[in-house]
C-alpha cells in the first residue's frame, strides 16, 4: 500500500475528499493560500473548510500539482472525465482516515477567523521577545530576526509607548505565555519555544525542529499554527487576562470576511436604504452578477442577514430540501432537482449561504 510521504499530501487528499469532485484543484490552492475572493470564502463555508483557510500562504501551484499527480499515480485519486476534477478512491479514503486519526489537525486551527492576524502576531511577538530579551540582558545591539519594516516600526513604537521597566514587560510576557502554553500539549509547547529567538540562542527553523522531534515538517507547521490560533482565540474570549500579549494584536481585528472588498460594504449600504438589486447595479454601474456576489457574501458573513427579499418562503424551502436530497453543493445538480425555471442560481447560492456550516 502507498505510504504517504508527508503531511502536505494528507492535506491535499483531505481537501479533495471534501470537495468531492465539485471543485478543481485550484480551489484547494486558493483556499490554502487564503485568497480573499468571495468564491473562496464561500467555498470554505459551504464545504466546512474554515479551519484550513489561508494556512499555507506560501504554497505554489507547482507544489500542489506535483502532489496531486503523485496521489493520482498511486491510485488514491481518480479523474472525473467530464470536468477533469478529482475524486478520492476507496484506498485513498482508507489511507486518509488512518492518517487523520494519527495526525489530526489541531482542534484550535481556524484560518477563516485568524488568517489576517497570524502573521502580524507572530512577527511582532517574536521580534518583541528578541528585543526584550536583549535589553534585559543589557545588550542593546543585535540583528533583528524580523526584517519587515512594518514589524520593526511596530516594535519601536510599542517600546516608546510602553515606558515601564523592560524587566517588567519581560516578566509579564513570560507569565502570559506560560499560562497559555500550559493549556497546550507538550509537543506544541516544545515547538513554540524552539521557534523563539532570545539572548542566548537564535530560533530554530521548521526543518530543524522537524528533525529534532522526528516529525514531518508540514505537521510541525500546523502544530505551530494551532498554538498561534489558540492564543488568538484566547485573546478574543478573554483579552483582560492577557493584557500584554493582546496589546500586540489588538489593532488588527476581524476575520476573512471583514477583509473582503469595500465594494461589498457599499452594496450593503444601498441595500439598507431599500434599493433593489437592479437599482444598485444601475447606480454603481456594475454588472448584476457582481452585485449578486456581494449579496451572497453578505449572507455568509452575517448570520442575521435576511434573504427573504430575494425569494419567497416557499422557494427557500424548495431549495433547502433539494440541497438536502441531492447531498451535493453543486448548483447545477440542485437546479436540476428543483426543476423550476423560476428559481435562479443566485437564489440557490443564497440559501446555501444561509444553510452554511450546519449541513
Amino acid at each position, binding site marked *: 500500500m502507498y505510504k504517504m510521504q508527508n503531511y502536505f499530501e494528507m492535506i491535499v487528499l483531505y481537501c479533495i475528499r471534501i470537495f468531492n469532485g465539485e471543485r478543481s484543484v485550484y480551489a484547494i490552492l486558493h483556499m490554502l493560500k487564503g485568497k480573499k475572493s468571495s468564491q473562496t470564502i464561500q467555498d470554505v463555508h459551504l464545504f466546512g473548510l474554515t479551519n484550513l483557510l489561508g494556512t499555507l500562504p506560501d504554497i505554489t501551484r507547482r507544489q500542489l500539482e506535483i502532489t496531486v499527480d503523485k496521489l493520482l499515480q498511486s491510485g488514491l485519486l481518480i479523474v472525473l472525465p467530464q470536468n477533469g476534477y478529482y475524486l478520492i478512491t476507496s484506498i485513498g479514503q482508507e489511507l486518509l482516515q488512518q492518517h487523520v486519526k494519527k495526525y489530526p489537525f489541531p482542534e484550535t486551527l481556524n484560518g477563516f477567523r485568524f488568517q489576517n492576524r497570524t502573521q502580524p502576531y507572530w512577527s511582532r511577538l517574536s521580534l518583541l521577545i528578541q528585543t526584550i530579551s536583549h535589553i*534585559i540582558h543589557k545588550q542593546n545591539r543585535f540583528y533583528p*530576526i524580523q526584517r519587515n*519594516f*512594518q514589524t520593526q516600526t511596530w516594535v519601536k513604537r510599542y517600546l516608546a509607548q510602553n515606558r515601564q521597566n523592560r524587566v517588567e514587560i519581560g516578566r509579564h510576557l513570560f507569565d502570559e505565555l*506560560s499560562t497559555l*502554553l500550559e493549556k497546550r500539549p507538550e509537543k506544541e509547547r516544545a515547538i513554540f*519555544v524552539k521557534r*523563539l529567538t532570545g*539572548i*542566548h540562542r537564535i530560533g530554530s527553523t521548521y526543518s530543524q525542529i522537524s528533525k529534532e522531534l522526528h516529525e514531518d515538517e508540514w505537521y510541525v507547521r500546523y502544530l505551530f499554527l494551532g498554538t498561534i490560533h489558540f492564543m488568538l482565540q484566547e485573546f478574543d474570549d478573554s483579552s483582560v487576562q492577557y493584557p500584554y500579549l493582546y496589546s500586540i494584536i489588538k489593532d488588527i481585528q476581524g476575520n476573512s470576511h471583514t477583509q473582503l472588498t469595500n465594494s461589498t460594504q457599499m452594496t450593503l449600504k444601498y441595500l439598507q436604504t431599500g434599493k433593489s438589486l437592479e437599482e444598485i447595479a444601475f447606480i454603481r454601474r456594475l454588472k448584476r452578477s457582481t452585485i449578486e456576489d456581494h449579496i451572497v457574501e453578505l449572507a455568509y458573513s452575517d448570520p442575521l442577514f435576511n434573504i427573504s427579499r430575494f425569494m419567497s418562503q416557499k422557494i427557500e424551502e424548495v431549495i433547502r430540501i433539494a440541497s438536502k436530497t441531492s447531498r451535493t453543493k453543486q448548483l447545477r445538480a440542485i437546479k436540476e432537482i428543483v426543476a423550476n425555471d423560476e428559481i435562479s442560481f443566485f437564489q440557490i447560492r443564497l440559501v446555501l449561504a444561509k444553510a452554511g456550516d450546519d449541513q
Partner: protein
Amino acid sequence: MNVEEILVKQFGYSTFRPGQKEVIDSLLEGNHTLAMLPTGSGKSLCYQLPSYVLNKVVIIVSPLLSLMQDQAEQLKMRGEKSVITLNSFLTSVQKREAIERLDSYRFIYLSPEMLAIPRIIERLQKLEIGLFVIDEAHCISQWGYDFRTDYLNLGNIRSKLNNPLTLALTATATKTVQADIKEKLKLEHPNEVITSVDRSNIAYIVEEHSSYDEKLARLKELVNSFDGSGIIYFSSKKAAESVTRFLQENGVKDIDYYHGGMEQEQRMLIQQQFLHGQLRIICATSAFGMGVNKNNVRVVIHFHLPGGMEAYLQEIGRAGRDGKQSAAILLYCDGDEGLPLHLAEQQLPTFYQIEETLASLHILEAGIWNIEPKQEIELREMYALTDVQWRWITHFVKEFEYEDQFMITEKLKGISKARRIENQNKLERFFRWVSVSCCRRVNILSYFDVALTEKNQTCCDRCGVVTDELLASLPHDDLEVKELKKTWRQELAAILIGEAKTNEEQTS
C-alpha cells in the same frame, strides 16, 4: 575631529584597513573617486566615515535589496539611527512619509529602480547631497559579471542631481570594466584607488576528482577536517539541499542549507544561526553571503564551478575577514563545465525568444511602458522567459523605443550574441585557471592586471600547499554550544527573565 578620531569614536576601530584611508582622503579633498577594494575589506566604511565630516546626506545606490537591508541594519547596530532604505518593499504610505522626511536622514539607501521615479528625483534635487555612492559599481558595465540594466541610467541621474561628489565602489573590476564605470557614470578624471584584489591570507586549492561520488565523499572528509566555520557553494538549490541531507545523515553536525527559494523568515534564522556560531557550516547558493558580516569563516568550498573569476573572488572573499589563515577549495571533476555554461545560457534570451516577444510586444496597445502584470505573466509564460531574460528584453526595448520593430529585433539579437560569447569567454578563462600549472594567485592577479607584491608562504596547491595539512593548521575556533534549557518553561524564562532570577526560580 580628524578622521582617525572619528574612526575610533564612531566605528570603534583603531586603524584603517588597506585602501580605506586613501579613499576617504580623496573624497574629503573633493575628488570623484573610483575605488576597488577586495571583498571583506570594509568598503562601506569608505562612505560612512566621510559623512561625519561632510555632515551632509549620503546617498547609496545598491543593487540588491538584501544587501541594502544588511548594511542599513549594520549601521543601526552601530547606533546610527538616521538611516532609511527606499525600495519596493515599502508600502506607498511609508514611501510617501519617507520621501517627505528625506532631508532628515544621514544615509539614504536606494535601489536603482527607485531613481527612475520622477518624484524621488525631484525630492533628491532639493537636498544638499554630500556624497553619491554607487555600490557594486561593476554592475553598470555589461562586461562586468553582474550586469544590471537599471544601473545604466545612473550617469544621467548624476547629471540631474548636479554631479554630486561621487564614489564608485567595487570589489572586482578588470581594467575594461573600470573604464566602463568611469564612462557610464560620466566621471571625469576621478581619483582611482585600486588596491590589490589579492587576499593573501586565503590559500587557493583545486582538487580534481574522478566522479561526483568521489567529490561527495571528499567533501565529507573536508568538513570533518577543520573545526571552524565554512561555506559550501552550489550552483543549484536542489544540490545544496540534498548534499546537506547527505552530510547530516553521515554525522556532520551543525550544518544546514540556505537558498533563495526559502521563506524569508527561515532564511533569516539560518543566516543568524551561522553568524552566532550556532551553525558551523552552510550549504548555499550564491544567494548567500552578500552582506553577511562574519569575520571568522575559515573555509569556502566550491562543489560546483562558479560563474567566472569575479564571482569566484566574491564568494571566496567571505573567508578570513579577520585576516587569519583561511582556505578556498574548489572540487572539480571532469565535465563540471557543463553546468555553469548552461546557467549562463539561461541568463540571455534566445533569438527565438527575442523575435517572438518583440512581435507580441509590438501588437500590445499599451506600449512597453504600460505593460500590465497580467500581460507580463502571459508573455513570460508563453515564451518561457526567466525573470532576468524578461528584464533584459524590456530594458533594451525601452532604450531603442524610437526604432522600428525590425531594427530593435536585430539589435537585440546582436547584443545577446555578443553577450553570449563574452560569457563563454569568461567561463573559459576560469576553466583555464582551474587547470593552470603555475601559481594560482599570480594567475588571478594577471586577470585583473595587477602584479603580486607580497607573497604568503601558504599560497596555493601549485605552490605546494597540501589540503589536509592546511586544514589541520587553520586557527581553531570553538563553537559555543547553544542548547535549549531542560524544560520549555526554563527556556522561556532564560529568554524573558534575567539569568539570576531563573536560578531563583529553579531552587524555589
